[in-house]
């Protein structure tokens, strides 16, 4: 089954390499602008920190039209002296292949997992192809906890702009932390390290690759699977995360619905685990933390609030099937706020997210409709977050997110009470 999605050329390469200690996967789609830097950083990192290991770099491409795979083939590290390597180094082995299945990051990862399993890799890492801030040290941070410290899953820790990763900050991090009790700050970070054992686990569940997990849902699925299945989990500090701006045409609603839908679907799968979990605990951390200067991020608050107001005006007929009357009344009241006064209280936000989770679980209507109707509320919460943190330092923003996490943990009992298995 595993071999079925691999091309003949890939199978031949696997035969040629036979085994690998380390596999690093880079999913890509039209990333010609950034992928040479990512390949150079990965190659240098492997040469610098894992020169004694057999390493294979895999590029799993979604049919780029800008020559991304060719650039991966051509890119090499020309001067190892500049990264202070004195031991002999050899060019990293590469496998460059298109992936099959639903177009998306998850399908690209599936191909990487399959190759890693066939190469019997001890440790794997995946990094996004649009990164501008990746350095060779990221390889050390993602792979060392697996190879030398007995961990199975390494999540990333970054310095990010306060307005970066808002789905993570307002929904995914607080919700997964409240559910599974592990404080993994970037559960959908995009860069992960994991053991060969966990790769086999990821490949056991064939059906999930036909769902949103094949798209934006892959990151949260990997993190949740690792945590809920009892694997040893840690996080590593990688520094700043700066990546190419996302395609402005990318549908935010699809992004929100795929990520949140995956979290909700996993709540059904791992009910036994999260229903038994109370409170949360920190996970082991690696890496030396430091402050980074980050480019300012432009935000169109007016548009976000306008979208929220339009949602309240038009979608209340849908929301009243699963949101309480009090919450709906509160949303209606909020829609009269002026842009700069706009606030979305944490307590109400958590109630709403839990009500959406229950509606998804109980299938009160088409699940896609439930998830897609969340977008205006998410934009409202994001606008409120921007308003509340406009003058805040990074630490103050973290404190604010911490308060939201506590609210999610506080209201979890109410979620459990209403959850009918």
């Amino acid at each position, binding site marked *: 089954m595993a071999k079925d999605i691999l091309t003949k050329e890939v199978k031949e390469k696997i035969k040629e390499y036979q085994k690998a200690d380390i596999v690093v996967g880079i999913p890509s789609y039209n990333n010609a602008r950034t992928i040479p830097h990512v390949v150079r950083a990965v190659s240098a990192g492997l040469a610098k920190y894992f020169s004694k290991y057999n390493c294979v770099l895999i590029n799993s491409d979604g049919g780029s039209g800008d020559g991304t795979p060719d650039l991966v083939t051509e890119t090499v590290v020309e001067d190892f002296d500049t990264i202070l390597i004195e031991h002999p180094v050899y060019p990293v082995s590469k496998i460059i292949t298109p992936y099959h299945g639903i177009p998306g990051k998850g399908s690209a990862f599936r191909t990487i997992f399959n190759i890693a399993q066939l190469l019997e890799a001890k440790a794997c890492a995946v990094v996004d192809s649009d990164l501008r801030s990746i350095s060779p040290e990221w390889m050390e941070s993602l792979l060392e906890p697996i190879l030398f410290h007995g961990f199975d899953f390494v999540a990333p820790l970054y310095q990010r702009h306060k*307005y*970066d*990763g*808002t*789905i*993570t900050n307002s929904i995914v991090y607080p919700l997964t932390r409240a559910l599974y009790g592990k404080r993994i700050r970037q559960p*959908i970070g*995009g860069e992960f390290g994991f053991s060969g054992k966990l790769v086999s686990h990821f490949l056991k569940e064939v059906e999930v690759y036909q769902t949103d997990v094949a798209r*934006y849902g892959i*990151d949260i699925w990997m993190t949740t699977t690792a945590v809920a299945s009892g694997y040893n989990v840690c996080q590593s500090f990688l520094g700043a995360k700066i*990546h190419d*701006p*996302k395609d*402005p045409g990318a*549908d*935010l*609603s699809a*992004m*929100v619905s795929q*990520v949140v839908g995956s979290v909700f679907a996993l709540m059904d799968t791992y009910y036994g685990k999260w229903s038994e979990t109370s409170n949360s605990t920190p996970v082991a951390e690696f890496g030396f933390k430091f402050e980074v200067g980050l480019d300012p*991020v*432009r*935000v*169109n608050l007016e*548009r*976000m609030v*306008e*979208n929220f107001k*339009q*949602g309240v*005006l*038009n*979608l209340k007929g*849908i929301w009243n*099937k699963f949101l309480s009357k009090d919450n709906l009344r509160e949303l209606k009241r909020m829609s009269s706020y002026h842009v700069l006064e706009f606030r979305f209280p944490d307590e109400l936000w958590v109630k709403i997210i839990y009500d959406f989770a229950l509606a998804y679980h109980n*299938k*009160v*209507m*088409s699940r*896609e*409709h439930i998830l*897609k*109707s969340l*977008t*205006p509320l998410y934009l409202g919460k*994001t606008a409120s977050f921007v308003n509340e943190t406009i003058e805040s330092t990074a630490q103050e923003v973290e404190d604010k997110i911490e308060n939201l996490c506590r609210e999610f943990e506080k209201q979890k009992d109410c979620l459990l009470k209403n959850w009918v298995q």
Partner: protein
Amino acid sequence: MLGNLMIIQLTLTSPFIEFWDRIVFLGPRLLELIIIFVAGFLVGWLLKLLVKSVLTAIKFDVLCFRIGFSAALQRAGIIRSPTAIIAHLTYWLVVFLFILAGLSALKVAAVDNLISSLFSYLPHFLLGILVFIIGYLLAQFLSRALLIALVNAEVKYARFIAAIVQVLIIVLFIAMGIEQLGIARGVVVATFSIFFGGVILGLAIAFGLGGKDIAKELLEKRLKPPAEPKSKSDEISHI
């Protein structure tokens, strides 16, 4: 004299004889009719119970709630659950069919003709009802999907557009249903064609006149190379 007496006797008794013959002819059939009626009520009652338990087992009410059918019933002032409604419909359909079967036992030509035309119309009637139900559900689903997509795409008058689409789909299916029922086919087709064509033409003209700038912008976006992002756009990375 004797002959006259016989004629009188015959004249007096023949209606009674005829009446008796009719009773002899109809009696067993009436009995048959009553038995079939009773059997109809019994079978209907049993089927009603069966349908009720099957629908309860497959959580039919929950399904109807999800697809918005329960809400539609509530809006129409029907407080019974969809399961109860289907069970009742089954009961009365079975009773109705048994009544028809019972009446045919009377062997009356007019009744026979009526029954045979009712039986040949029944599939059309059921299909017509099915078309109405499917149309209603499809209209609900599609208009909801459209409403959410329009709101997320920040389109103004989202609810109005979604409502128009819902009405158009319902009208389309009503026309299909009435066509199936065979009611004034020519009138329905003509009315529907005029109505639907008129609405589409009206919308096309309205879009052409009112939205020519938007259409121009859309075409420019498609055909021209992408311009630099507007200063008002966000740079937030949501993931």
